[in-house]
């Protein structure tokens, strides 16, 4: 692991030496996020978002543990305990707003992190395992966020739980019994609320575990970088500390400004007013939508309105899950040896003018009511989404002519690299 020129940890006093010989925890930290971890010197701010995602995971766990101290997962009182948190618990409003908006920010930074990966092909060899673990983390996040949204036991909580577990009801033969088993009843009630609370508490720690694997796998080849050219030598890298601790710290400060603005000035903007009405099994809200971060996938779910061999309902469910599962195959769908979108002219066009607008359209349609023209637009966008990953990407990656890559990261940064010039001179002489 790591490069041969990585600095070695040297305990500075007797106690650290004592500790290092028995439990080398400071050495682990030094090698993982300290001066002992060499990182490409050309990382842009797009490489901040992994650390930011880690920060929001921790923030969610801290605020979540606090909320769990005051919340009761019982359908009789759950809604009331949330109001108790908002009105009676010291700083309870802050904890709840930080947790609710923290979920949104966690998704924002993770989406940027994922799309950074798309553009710079961070999923390519030798980093496939990092990517696969990342998709697993994203799936776990979706499950965790969904179950968390059920806990306040408002109208959106209740009907969200009913609709999402209803997805499993689409599965042939076992669907209906499966849905009843998941809910522990015929509709969301105490049993469902209790198990969702239990799992909502558990899954973040599972995510933390997978994050450790994600980082472990990352530290084998080291970070990718905006050129996509692998690190060749020491002048291509900088120690993580202090260079990237400072850069990540600055990025964290910036995102915390936005976060604080949302928590203190627009705490309910990303939520739905209907969730301040207690769950009522007899009345569905007029316009039922999930949280914003599920909109694109919700649009794909609703895009299927016609039966074709299988029922429309089942197609929608399959397509929604497939929209994420297709990411697992990305390292093998994109066959270009060049990583960075900066050197891939055709790929770049399809990224900026294909995939990104497609996601924006799906996002808008997912939040819109299920009526025309949104249904038709969702259908076109859904078709393009799968076309992009399954057809366009493999074809583009095999026909495009990449632009010339820099010899090294050093050359990309400084404009010249002695080794490259020497190599060229030697070649000319020969």
């Amino acid at each position, binding site marked *: 692991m790591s490069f041969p020129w990585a600095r070695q940890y040297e305990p500075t006093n007797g106690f650290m030496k004592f500790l290092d010989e028995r439990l080398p925890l400071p050495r682990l930290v030094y090698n993982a996020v300290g001066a002992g971890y060499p990182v490409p010197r050309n990382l842009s701010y797009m490489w901040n978002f992994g650390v930011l995602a880690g920060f929001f995971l921790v923030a969610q766990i*801290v605020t979540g543990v*606090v909320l769990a*101290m005051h919340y009761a997962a019982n359908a009789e009182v759950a809604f009331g305990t949330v109001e108790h948190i908002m009105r009676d618990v*010291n*700083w*309870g409003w802050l904890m709840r707003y930080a947790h609710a908006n923290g979920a949104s920010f966690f998704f924002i930074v993770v989406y940027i992190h994922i799309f950074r990966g798309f553009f710079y092909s961070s999923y390519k060899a030798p980093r496939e395992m990092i990517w696969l673990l990342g998709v697993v983390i994203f799936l776990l996040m979706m499950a965790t966020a969904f179950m968390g949204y059920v806990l306040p036991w408002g109208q959106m909580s209740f009907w969200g739980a009913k609709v999402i577990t209803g997805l499993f009801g689409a599965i042939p033969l076992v669907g209906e019994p499966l849905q009843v088993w998941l809910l522990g009843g015929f509709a969301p009630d105490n049993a469902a609320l209790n198990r969702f609370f239990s799992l909502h508490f558990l899954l973040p720690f599972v995510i933390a575990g997978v994050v450790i694997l994600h980082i472990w796998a990352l530290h084998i080849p080291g970070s990718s970088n905006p050129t996509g050219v692998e690190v060749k030598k020491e002048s291509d890298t900088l120690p993580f500390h202090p260079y990237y601790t400072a850069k990540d*710290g600055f990025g964290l400060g910036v995102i915390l400004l936005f976060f604080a603005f949302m928590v203190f000035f627009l705490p309910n903007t990303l939520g739905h007013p209907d969730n301040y009405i207690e769950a009522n099994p007899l009345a569905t809200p007029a316009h039922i939508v999930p949280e914003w971060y599920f909109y694109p996938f919700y649009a794909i779910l609703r895009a299927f309105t016609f039966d074709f061999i299988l029922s429309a309902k089942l197609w929608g469910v399959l397509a929604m899950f497939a929209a994420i599962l297709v990411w697992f195959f990305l390292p093998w769908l994109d066959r270009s040896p060049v990583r960075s979108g900066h050197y891939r002219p055709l790929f770049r066009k399809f990224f900026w003018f294909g995939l990104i607008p497609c996601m924006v359209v799906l996002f808008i349609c997912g939040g819109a009511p299920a009526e025309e023209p949104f249904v038709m637009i969702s259908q076109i966008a859904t078709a393009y989404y799968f076309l992009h990953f399954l057809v366009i990407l493999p074809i583009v990656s095999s026909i495009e002519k990449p632009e010339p890559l820099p010899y090294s990261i050093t050359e990309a940064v400084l404009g010249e690299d002695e080794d490259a010039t020497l190599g060229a001179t030697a070649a000319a002489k020969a």
Partner: protein
Amino acid sequence: MAEMNGEDGVRRRDFINIAAVSAAGIGGAGVVLPLVSQMAPSADVLAESSTEVDVSAIEPGQAIKAIFRKQPLFVKRLTQAEIDEANSVDVSSLREAQTLAERTKEGNEDILVTMGVCTHLGCVPLGAAEGEVKGEYGGYFCPCHGSHYDTAGRIRKGPAPTNLEVPEYEFTSETVITVG
């Protein structure tokens, strides 16, 4: 170099470093306050923090148990014999020197209001209800570790360090006390 301030050797970067770390430290400390404070009693708990008790129906020698801040409260009307016994004790010989008058309200020396919480480790002493053991000194007896309290609720024997606590209360009318 432009970065170096030759005179005292302090660089711009040193200043920025200290300023940034200080700002982060103060911000971090600001976050700790709500995280600690949220565990303190919430507004609804504090709202339950006073209790009214009607003492008119308590006969001499009888006691009732009320609840104050989710803990038992003993309200007892002492008999003349119990008052005399409490007053006959040499105060200086007590573990916590207090007279009966100091533990009751003027004009109502027969009404003894104490927490029903042993000052040793918090058990509920016996002696308030009819037929319960009152201990060697005729007041209250804690069965957990054998603390004996006298008729004025003062510790006389056993491991408890102080007398049964007399909470803050006042007579809001002839017959009603408000505790807390």
